[in-house]
C-alpha cells in the first residue's frame, strides 16, 4: 500500500466517521445544526487521531500535513491529550488565540492544570471537577466555560472530549474539540432578558391578559388577571367541564355567561377577532364591567395557533355613562315639561292682559252709557281702547304662531343613510339596555334629500324611542327594524317594532294625545309637523303579523343618487 493510498484510506476513515457521527447526531440525539456539526467534528477527530497515531507513516506519505490543514481550517479548535490530560496535540489556533503553548496548558502539578491560566476564575473549579471526573472515569467530557483570549477578553467556549481506549480497555488518549459559543451565549442571554422583560410587561400592564388554545381552552392568565379574579390556570386542571366552561362559570357574571361563551365559540368557528363587554367577577365577589378583546395568532399556513386577549376594566366608564344617560333623560324630560309649562303660562298672561282690559273697559262703557245722563263721549274713548286692546291680543296670538313656525337651521342636502346611522348610534345603548336588537336595511344608492339634519334626527330618535318603549313589556324577540328605500320621487323611511300596536292611528299624531303613562303627547305631533314642513308625510300602520310601522317620506333631490 503506498503512502498516498494509505492516507486516502485513513482520511476516508475519518470522513466516514464524520458521516456516521452526523447520522448518529442527527437521528438519535435530534440535535440542531450546530451540535450536529460539532458531533461531526468529533467523529472527524477520531479519524484524525488515527492519522496522528500513524504520524510517521503520514509524514512519509507527505499528506498528513494536508489533513492537519483541514483540521485547522475547521470552525472548531481540536486538541488531544494523554490519559493524564497532558496535551498531545493542539490546534495552532489555540495557541494563537490564548497566547499559550500546549505545555503551558497541560497539568502543572498534582491537581493543577495549565488551563487555569486561560480559564475564567469563576469557571475553573467546575472545569477541574468535570475534567478530573472524565479523566478518572472515561466519561464523555462536555463543558461550557469562559476562556481568556490573548487580548484578555473572555469568551464562552464549549468543550467536548471523548476517551480512546486501547485493546485492554484502558484510556489511551482524549480527543477534544472546543468551539466558540460566545455569540450564541450572548444571544441566549439577550433572549432570556427579552423574555423576562416581556413577561414583566405582560404582568405589569394595567390590563388582564390571557390566551386561549385554538379550541378556546384558556392557556395563560397574566399576573393582573390572576390577582383580579383570584383564579390561576393551574386551578383549572383536572376538571370534567373543560377549562373554558370552568373559567366562565367562575369569573363571568351569570347573566353574561351565555354571551361570553357564544362569543368565544363563534370566534373560534370564524377565526375572526372578537370584542364584547361583560361583567367579570373580582376576587372579592364584586362584578365589574370589562371590555374583552381577543385576536387570533396564526402560523405561516394561516392556521390559528393561539388566541390572545385582554380585558380592560370599564366599570367606572360604564357607571359614568349610565349616570350621564340618566341625567340626560331627566334633564330632557324636565326641560320639556318646564318649557311647555312656562310657555303656556306666558301665553296665558300675554293674551289675558288685553282680555282683562277689554272686559273692564266694556263694563265701564256700559256704565257710562247706562247712567242717567249717558256719557257718549267717554264711551267712544273707551271703545277705541277696546279695539286697541283686542288688536293687541290678536297680535300676541300671531306672534306665538310665528314662534312655532320658526326654523332654527336652514335645510341642507344630506345623505339619509348617515343621518339614520347617527340616530341609530345615539339610541343603540338605550336599545341594548332594553334588550332590543336593531336591524338596519338601507337601500344602496339612495338619493340625497334636502333637510334640516337635526330635525330629521329628532324625528328618527323619537320614533326609535317610541318603538323601544312600546316593546317594554314584551319578553324575548324584541326587535326593531329601520329601513330606508327609494319610493318614486321620495325616500321612504320605516321604523317597525313588535309592540302592542296603535289603537287610533289618526289621533296619535295630535298634540297632547299619548298612550304612555308619563308622556306629554307632544312627540308625534312635533314629528309630523317636522316631516310636513319638509314636504313629506308621516303615518303609522299595524301589519298582519302585529308589527307596528311608522313610515315617513322625504322628497328626494332631483335624481342624483349618492352612495350611502
Amino acid at each position, binding site marked *: 500500500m503506498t503512502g498516498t493510498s494509505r492516507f486516502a484510506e485513513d482520511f476516508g476513515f475519518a470522513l466516514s466517521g464524520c458521516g456516521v457521527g452526523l447520522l448518529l447526531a442527527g437521528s438519535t440525539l435530534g440535535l440542531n445544526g450546530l451540535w450536529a456539526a460539532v458531533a461531526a467534528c468529533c467523529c472527524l477527530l477520531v479519524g484524525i487521531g488515527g492519522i496522528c497515531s500513524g504520524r510517521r507513516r503520514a509524514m512519509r506519505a507527505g499528506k498528513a500535513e494536508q489533513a492537519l490543514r483541514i483540521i485547522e481550517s475547521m470552525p472548531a479548535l481540536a486538541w488531544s491529550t494523554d490519559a493524564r490530560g497532558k496535551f498531545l496535540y493542539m490546534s495552532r489556533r489555540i495557541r494563537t488565540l490564548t497566547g499559550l503553548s500546549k505545555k503551558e496548558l497541560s497539568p502543572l502539578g498534582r491537581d493543577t492544570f495549565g488551563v487555569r491560566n486561560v480559564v475564567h476564575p469563576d469557571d475553573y473549579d467546575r472545569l477541574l471537577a468535570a475534567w478530573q471526573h472524565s479523566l478518572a472515569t472515561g466519561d464523555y467530557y462536555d463543558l461550557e466555560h469562559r476562556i481568556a483570549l490573548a487580548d484578555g477578553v473572555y469568551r464562552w467556549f464549549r468543550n467536548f472530549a471523548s476517551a480512546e481506549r486501547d485493546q485492554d480497555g484502558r484510556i489511551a488518549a482524549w480527543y477534544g474539540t472546543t468551539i466558540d459559543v460566545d455569540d450564541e451565549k450572548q444571544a441566549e442571554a439577550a433572549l432570556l432578558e427579552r423574555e423576562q422583560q416581556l413577561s414583566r410587561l405582560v404582568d405589569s400592564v394595567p390590563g388582564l391578559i390571557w390566551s386561549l388554545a385554538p379550541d378556546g381552552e384558556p392557556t395563560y392568565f397574566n399576573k393582573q388577571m390572576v390577582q383580579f379574579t383570584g383564579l390561576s390556570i393551574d386551578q383549572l386542571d383536572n376538571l370534567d367541564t373543560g377549562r373554558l366552561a370552568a373559567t366562565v362559570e367562575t369569573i363571568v357574571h351569570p347573566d353574561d355567561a351565555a354571551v361570553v361563551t357564544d362569543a368565544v365559540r363563534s370566534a373560534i368557528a370564524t377565526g375572526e377577532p372578537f370584542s364584547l363587554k361583560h361583567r367579570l367577577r373580582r376576587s372579592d365577589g364584586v362584578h365589574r364591567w370589562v371590555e374583552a378583546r381577543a385576536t387570533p395568532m396564526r402560523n405561516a399556513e394561516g392556521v390559528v395557533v393561539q388566541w390572545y386577549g385582554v380585558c380592560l376594566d370599564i366599570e367606572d366608564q360604564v357607571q359614568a355613562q349610565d349616570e350621564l344617560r340618566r341625567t340626560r333623560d331627566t334633564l330632557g324630560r324636565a326641560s320639556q315639561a318646564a318649557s311647555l309649562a312656562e310657555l303656556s303660562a306666558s301665553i296665558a298672561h300675554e293674551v289675558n292682559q288685553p282680555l282683562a282690559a277689554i272686559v273692564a273697559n266694556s*263694563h265701564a262703557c256700559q256704565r257710562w252709557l247706562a247712567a242717567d245722563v249717558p256719557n257718549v263721549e267717554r264711551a267712544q274713548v273707551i271703545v277705541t281702547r277696546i279695539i286697541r286692546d283686542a288688536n293687541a291680543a290678536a297680535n300676541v296670538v300671531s306672534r306665538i304662531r310665528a314662534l312655532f313656525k320658526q326654523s332654527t337651521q336652514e335645510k341642507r342636502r344630506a345623505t339619509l343613510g348617515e343621518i339614520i346611522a347617527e340616530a341609530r348610534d345615539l339610541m343603540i345603548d338605550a336599545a341594548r339596555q332594553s334588550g332590543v336588537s336593531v336591524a338596519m336595511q338601507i337601500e344602496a344608492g339612495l338619493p340625497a334629500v334636502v333637510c334640516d339634519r337635526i330635525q330629521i334626527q329628532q324625528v328618527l330618535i323619537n320614533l326609535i324611542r317610541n318603538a323601544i318603549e312600546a316593546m317594554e313589556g314584551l319578553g324575548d324577540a324584541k326587535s326593531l327594524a329601520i329601513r330606508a328605500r327609494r319610493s318614486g320621487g321620495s325616500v321612504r323611511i320605516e321604523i317597525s317594532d313588535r309592540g302592542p300596536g296603535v289603537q287610533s292611528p289618526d289621533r296619535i299624531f295630535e298634540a297632547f294625545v299619548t298612550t304612555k303613562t308619563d308622556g306629554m303627547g307632544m312627540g308625534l305631533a312635533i314629528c309630523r309637523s317636522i316631516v310636513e314642513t319638509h314636504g313629506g308625510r308621516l303615518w303609522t300602520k299595524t301589519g298582519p303579523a302585529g308589527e307596528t310601522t311608522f313610515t315617513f317620506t322625504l322628497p328626494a333631490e332631483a335624481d342624483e343618487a349618492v352612495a350611502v
Partner: protein
Amino acid sequence: MTHELETSQNPASGWMRPKDEAEQPLVIIVDDDPAVREAVQELMLSAGMECACFASPQELFAASVWERPACLILDVRMPGSSGLDLQLHLTASGRRKPIVFLTGHGDIPMTVQAMKAGAIDFLTKPVRDQTLLDAVTAGIRKDLAQRADERIVERNVRRLESLSPRERRVLYEVARGRANKQIAFDLGISEVTVKLHRANVMRKMQASSIGDLVRTWESLPAPMRETCAA
C-alpha cells in the same frame, strides 16, 4: 310717572262722598300693564270713584296718597316686586290699607298668602265689574271704619295726655279694679284726695261712667297704658 288723579266727570252716585275733601275715598291702582291700569281706572270712574294709578310699587311709595281713605287694587304679577311683596311691605310699614288683588293666574298658595295677610279679595282677570266694585267698596268701608277707630284712639290719647302724672296713676289703679281705700294706702295719700283725682280723671277723659272710662282705657295703646303705672 303715571300718577294720575282723575275725578269722575259723571258722579254716577255720590254714595260715599263726605263734605271734607280729605275724607273723599280714593282707589289706588298698581298694575304694570297700561291697558289694564287704564281700563280698571275707567271702570272705577264710571262708578264714581276717584283713582290714583301707579305702574310700580316704587311709584306708589313716592306718592302721598296715604292720608285719604283708600282701597288698593294690586296686580299680583309685576316686574321687580310682586303685589304680594307689596302687601307685606305696606303692613310692615304701618300703612294698613285694604287690598284687592287682581291676577292673571292665581293659584291656591298665592290666594291663601294674600288672604292671611288681610286682603279683601283675590280676583282673577278678566274680572266681572260688579265683583271688583263690591270688593273695592268693601275695602273703602273697611278703611273708613279703621280710620274712625284710629281717630277715637287719637282723641283718647289726647285726653290721657291732659292728665297729671298722679291722675294717670289713679286711672291706672281704677282701671285695674282697685278700691279708693286700697289706692290711698298704696300711694300714701288720703282717700279724699283719691276721690278728688278720680273726679278729675272722669271729667278730663269725658267718661260718663266707670264702664265708659274702662272702655276708653282699653282703647289706648298698651305702651301708653304702661307709662301710667309709674
